[in-house]
């Protein structure tokens, strides 16, 4: 299974997949499935970006959901309270998320591994609590009503828009991975000390990774807000982060395909398990345990060597 996926001749398959995605709403008329695909795309973008930091660079960013939420709220509020159009909102959401990442990332540069996880998680929680309690601004748990980006109801427009965002993100990330940035990221993951001794500015690259990935996640978070139409602080909750974690892990961190696979499979899995409520999270827990034990590289066989990235095209 692992080598099957890793050995697919890439360009043609991706073109085919792209075509299928484009034709999907035409072939399948069910609005519910459109919704599932939209959610999957949103998470695919989210997980892929996060994966740059976690899978490729080895930075344990467990607070990435904060950027998602910041993007969502900033965009929503700028539209609702300041009267901007949602398009500007999306951009502002991304910028706000990037700014937040500057703050959040700063303490992490001196820390190692799991400590980065704690700090980023703590930051995210602080933001969530502030969001939840600042009811005057955000309406907290009551929910903030967010206008849609598109005129008219229906899922077709959001579908194509998010697919475009997805395709753009994938192209950008692919370029990044195959550039010197990608090499640097992997070298930082494998050995920070060695990378530094070769003159790589650890802080510079980490900061860059944070800013870029948070911007993307912020924009997609903003999109999510306008798509769903109602926003609560749960969007910045740790449940979101754990979902991202499972999707990345299961799909295969350290590859480009993995997060996408994970996002789609787990979004559909979550929906099919919806009836089971509490058993759903129980199964998530089991999925995590079994994946770490038996599929540590995920479905797509992530954390590959440098050679693999360059030869098999990610």
């Amino acid at each position, binding site marked *: 299974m692992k080598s099957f996926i890793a050995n697919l001749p890439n360009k043609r398959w991706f073109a085919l997949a792209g075509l299928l995605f484009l034709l999907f709403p035409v072939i399948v008329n069910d609005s519910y499935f459109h919704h599932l695909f939209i959610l999957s795309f949103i998470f695919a973008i989210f997980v892929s970006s996060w994966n740059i930091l976690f899978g490729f660079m*080895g930075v*344990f960013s467990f607070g990435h959901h904060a950027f998602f939420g910041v993007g969502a709220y900033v965009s929503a509020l700028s539209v609702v309270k300041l009267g901007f159009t949602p398009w500007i909102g999306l951009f502002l959401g991304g910028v706000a998320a990037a700014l937040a990442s500057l703050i959040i990332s*700063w*303490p992490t540069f*001196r*820390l*190692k*591994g*799991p*400590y980065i*996880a*704690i*700090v980023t998680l*703590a*930051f995210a*929680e*602080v933001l969530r*609590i*502030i969001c939840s*309690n600042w009811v005057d601004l955000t309406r907290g748990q009551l929910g903030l009503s967010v206008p849609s980006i598109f005129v008219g109801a229906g899922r077709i427009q959001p579908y194509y828009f998010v697919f475009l965002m997805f395709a753009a993100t994938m192209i950008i990330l692919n370029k990044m991975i195959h550039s010197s940035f990608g090499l640097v990221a992997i070298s930082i*993951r*494998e050995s920070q000390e060695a990378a530094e001794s070769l003159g790589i500015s650890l802080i510079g690259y980490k900061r860059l990774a944070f800013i870029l990935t948070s911007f993307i996640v912020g924009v997609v978070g903003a999109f999510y807000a306008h798509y769903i139409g109602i926003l609560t602080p749960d969007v910045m909750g740790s449940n979101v982060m*754990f979902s991202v*974690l499972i999707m990345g*892990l299961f799909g295969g961190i350290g590859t480009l395909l993995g997060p996408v696979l994970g996002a789609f499979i787990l979004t559909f899995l979550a929906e099919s398990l919806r009836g089971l409520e*509490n*058993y759903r*999270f*129980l199964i*998530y*827990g*089991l*999925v*995590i*345990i079994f994946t*770490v*034990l038996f599929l*540590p590289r995920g479905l797509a066989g992530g*954390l590959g060597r440098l050679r693999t990235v360059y030869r098999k095209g990610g």
Partner: protein
Amino acid sequence: MYNLEIILRQAFYGLVLGSNYVLIAAGFSLVWGVVGVMNIAHGEFFMLGAYAAYFILTFLGWNLFLTTIAAMALIFLIGVFFEKMTIDPLRPRKKLDYDMGTLIMTIGISIFLQNLALIVFGPKYKGVPAYFDGMVRLGPIIMSYDRIAIFLVALLLIGILLFLIKHTRIGLALRAVSENPDGAALAGIPIGRVLYFAFGLSASFAGAAGVLLIPIYNVYPTVGGNVILLAFSIVIFGGLGSVKGAIYAGFLIGILESLAVLFISSAWKDVIVFAIVILVLTFRPRGLMGTKEA
């Protein structure tokens, strides 16, 4: 309104809580130092201990001491089980894979246990009546026997832990593995069994805190979440790998928290705790008394 009596009473309450926080934090720090794992599921051992206490007390009617011992034994075994099944298999991996894997694994265990408890025990808070009734007046403060008992048992357990670590062979083994696992292995220490013991011990102490605190906190499936946050803060505050640091920090934070409640609403309390954690890690990556680099 904030007269001396209230402040002293809260301070004592802080000692009661703090002593239990020490139990929780010391266990967390122990696993961190000896097994090299940041056990996100640590709070769930607290939760399981509390549920064990609930069932023992409600259906068997044992007293405080028996309940504590029984629960500790049970949670010890559960801890060993999890170590053997989920952490042990990860040991041969490279450092990055091990760090990543164990962290994520404990997250998975945490999610699994929380939801298992939710399904099996139901979401409602379960409580028990106080262990002892009655109050006593000591100087300006009135304290309940219940809380005094909890405090004393917790102190006793802390004492046992310290004795274990400093004056027994197993304690020596724990310290050796914590400082240098390879060296310890070369010296003939059975690493596997030491790890099982460390995990079991850590879990049982968290479980003990669960037993002791159930009359105050009640128990519900997600109670571990709050606990793990506190454990983090204390361990980071007091310094990683330092049980003594965990002790100082545990009491300190217990008292601070109880006094803070007088002045700030509890919603913002978590924010302050988080903010302190972030600040400490930013400016002193070792924690206040840490021996291990963050």
